[in-house]
């Protein structure tokens, strides 16, 4: 990432927009953060999208309730701040814009004309904060039920369910909720019929075997043809971001495992790296290498689950039995090292939960030796299979420009031929020390998305092999006062060290006030944690940007005019889990 270039961009914006640029905020996010006026926002977004090395993607759009924040030195006055984070793939850099809003006037112009994927993000901000976007065509709730009252991420909204009476469902309430879930085509600007056909409206989900969880897609059909469709999410909203505001920095780690719930410790990584930035902790090579190794192992288990279900959605019943057998082999290693299967929560602020056990390398080697022939077999039997090819080649294809406009990242982006892998472009946790290739697709279709993941597993195996061969020596905890839990031998020196230890273990570490952000190349795309610390034992605001959210938003743009079986093939090829969408 070039800081000169970013400085030049800031300068040219200031020259063009003058005092519409209110303030440049210093942060630990690694990108320029500009506070801009609401009036100039859309023009500035447009300007950034039209640079010679443009910001092609609206990477994230969220908000912060600033009303309870005490450390706001130098920041413009604001009750709420709306945050726009842009990503330039061509320039490999980021940019953040913030707009200050007052409680009495929570309105902003919509950014949809500039970035089409602002649509869902703006609905989410409306749902969670009650901020309106003027000109948005469908500003309705997206995560909470339509019958909900209040905006959960506001600081004055309750967090716990147990602060209220226990949940009850009455016969009347059931009717009311079911009615509220009824799909009304007119609300979405759809017609019930045209001159020669009556359209059929079909609910796919919220519980459907091909929907991979609690996800609903309403289809407008003319026979087998999908005229239009409306994805409906929020059936899996677990309030993880609100949860972060009442857990200590340390005790939030297990919640991250459950975001992309097949990604295991891969989810811990962006979180602990972002916290370590705030705390100023540098970990040694051993910790970094173990983190890489375990994350790659989880990438393989996640891709194996993908492969099995993807082929099952296409009608092949047996691959899932094979890939789950492989997953079981991976879990033997994972369990021996971390003590748990799916959600180990094994990374710590400044280190790991414990060191690698004796004999780990033998187990890991067994797994690494087991996999390659299996992958070859999957490739030969399935990806070269003419039926699989007929169902997927040139199905639901999109190009790089389309992917970037919709915020698509990860393997789905690389399937279009775009070489953008954070592990190469912005190495974190020591990825620069490993040799591996970034597989690319050509057509960006459902076939390439499947094929590419098989190749990615091979590369992950390569990385793991290098970890086995060259595991550095070292401690599993960084020697730093904010490492949590603190190294035990530091505790027993005198009363001062004992008190410090006690406070840090019971209340958790207090991190300096600042903002930090870490992106990683997670199993399904780019996952990042954007942390705001207000100098306390808890996070002031934790924003979790997940890759699957934009991937689902893109579905209607792709499927209009497609056929139902293609839709199923596409759903199988996206690789999403609902926790990674709704959080």
């Amino acid at each position, binding site marked *: 990432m070039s800081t000169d270039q970013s400085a030049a961009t800031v300068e040219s914006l200031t020259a063009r927009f003058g005092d519409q640029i209110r303030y440049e905020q210093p942060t630990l996010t690694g990108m320029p953060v500009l506070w801009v006026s609401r009036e100039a926002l859309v023009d500035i977004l447009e300007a950034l999208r039209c640079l010679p090395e443009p910001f092609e993607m609206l990477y994230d759009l969220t908000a912060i309730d600033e009303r309870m924040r005490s450390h706001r030195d130098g920041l413009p006055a604001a009750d709420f701040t709306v945050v726009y984070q842009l990503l330039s793939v061509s320039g490999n850099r980021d940019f953040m814009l913030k707009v200050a809003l007052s409680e009495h006037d929570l309105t902003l112009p919509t950014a949809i004309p500039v970035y089409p994927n602002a649509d869902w993000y703006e609905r989410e901000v409306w749902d969670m904060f009650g901020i309106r976007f003027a000109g948005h065509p469908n500003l309705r709730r997206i*995560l*909470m*039920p339509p019958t*909900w009252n209040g905006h*959960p991420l506001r600081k004055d*909204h*309750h967090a*716990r*369910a*147990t602060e209220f009476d*226990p*949940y*009850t*469902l*009455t*016969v*009347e*309430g*059931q009717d009311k*909720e*079911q009615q509220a*879930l009824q799909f009304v085509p007119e609300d979405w600007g759809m017609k019930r019929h045209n001159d020669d056909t009556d359209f059929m409206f079909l609910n796919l989900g*919220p*519980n*459907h*075997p091909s929907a991979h*969880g*609690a996800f609903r897609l309403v289809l407008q059909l003319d026979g087998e043809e999908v005229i239009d469709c409306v994805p409906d999410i*929020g*059936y*899996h*909203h*677990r*309030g993880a971001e*609100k*949860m972060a505001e009442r857990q200590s920095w340390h005790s939030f780690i*297990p919640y991250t495992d*459950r975001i992309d*719930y*097949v990604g295991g410790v891969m989810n811990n990584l962006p979180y602990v790296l972002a916290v370590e930035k705030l705390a100023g902790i540098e970990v040694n090579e051993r910790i970094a290498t173990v983190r890489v190794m375990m994350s790659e192992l989880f990438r393989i288990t996640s891709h194996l689950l993908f492969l099995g279900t993807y082929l099952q959605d296409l009608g092949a019943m047996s691959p*899932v*039995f*094979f890939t*789950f*057998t492989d*997953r*079981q082999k991976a879990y033997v290693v994972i369990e*021996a090292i971390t*003590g748990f*299967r*799916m*959600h180990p929560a094994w990374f710590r602020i400044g280190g790991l939960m*414990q060191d690698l*056990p*004796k*004999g*780990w390398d*033998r187990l890991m080697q067994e797994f690494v030796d087991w996999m390659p022939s299996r992958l070859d077999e999957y490739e030969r039997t399935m990806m070269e299979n003419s039926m699989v090819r007929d169902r997927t080649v040139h199905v639901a294809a999109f190009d790089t420009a389309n992917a970037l406009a919709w915020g698509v990242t990860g393997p789905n982006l690389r399937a279009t031929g775009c070489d953008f892998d954070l592990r190469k472009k912005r190495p974190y946790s020591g990825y620069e020390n490993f040799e591996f290739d970034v597989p690319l697709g050509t057509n960006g279709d459902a076939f390439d998305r499947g094929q590419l993941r098989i190749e990615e597993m091979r590369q992950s195996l390569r990385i793991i092999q290098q970890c086995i061969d060259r595991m550095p020596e070292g401690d599993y905890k960084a020697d730093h006062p904010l490492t949590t839990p603190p190294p035990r031998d530091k505790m027993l020196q005198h009363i001062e060290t004992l008190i410090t230890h006690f406070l840090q273990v019971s209340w958790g570490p207090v991190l300096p006030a600042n903002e930090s952000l870490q992106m990683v190349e997670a199993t399904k795309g780019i996952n990042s944690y954007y942390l705001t610390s207000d100098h306390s034992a808890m996070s002031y605001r934790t924003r979790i940007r997940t890759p699957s959210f934009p991937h689902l938003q893109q579905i209607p743009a792709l499927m209009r005019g497609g056929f139902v079986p293609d839709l199923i093939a596409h759903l199988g090829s996206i690789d999403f889990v*609902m*926790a990674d969408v709704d959080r």
Partner: protein
Amino acid sequence: MAYTLTRANDAVAQQSASYPLGERQRVEDPMKQQVHRSVFTGKLEDVLNSTVNWGRKNSLWPYNFGLSCCYVEMTTAFTAPHDVARFGAEVIRASPRQADFMVIAGTCFVKMAPVIQQLYDQMLEPKWVISMGQCANSGGMYDIYSVVQGVDKFLPVDVYVPGCPPRPEAFLQGLQLLQDSIQEERRPLSWVVGDQGVYRADMSSQREKHRDRRIQATELRTPDSV
């Protein structure tokens, strides 16, 4: 053994009634009363009941329904390494109307609850519910505005499987416990014969059953080697 009796009088429910519908009461083993009437028909009914229950418990068709992470461990139990077919429960149905039991595998969200209720209502009697994982049991680690604190707030649950997520083996044990409880059940043998109530046996909790043995363990293996 004590039983819980539910009668099928919930067909016309009041608007204000809350789920789960129907009244529950604790009763004695209904077979005992039969035996008082006539030793012969009592025995006959006993044999018939056991035979029907034996058939039911060994051909449980699960509903393919998942909510979140726990569902992944549930599917793991369905695949080759764990092989749920050993217990006759491998015929996964995609429609609630064909399924015998539903596993609430995952978090029960406020937005999803009415949908779960609808799906449960679409299943035909006899039907059972396994609550898999701490989220479904009690809300688990998600005491948060959007999560119902346990699916038993509106569904009648037969077996609770603890864990976050439970291992596939734990799910299989839950399935076997459900089978054990089905073996003890008393249901109407026909819609014209006898009492129309459903008698469910109150099974003892595994925690109580195994507590004595478990607290014997004083030393656990260290995690320092594999």
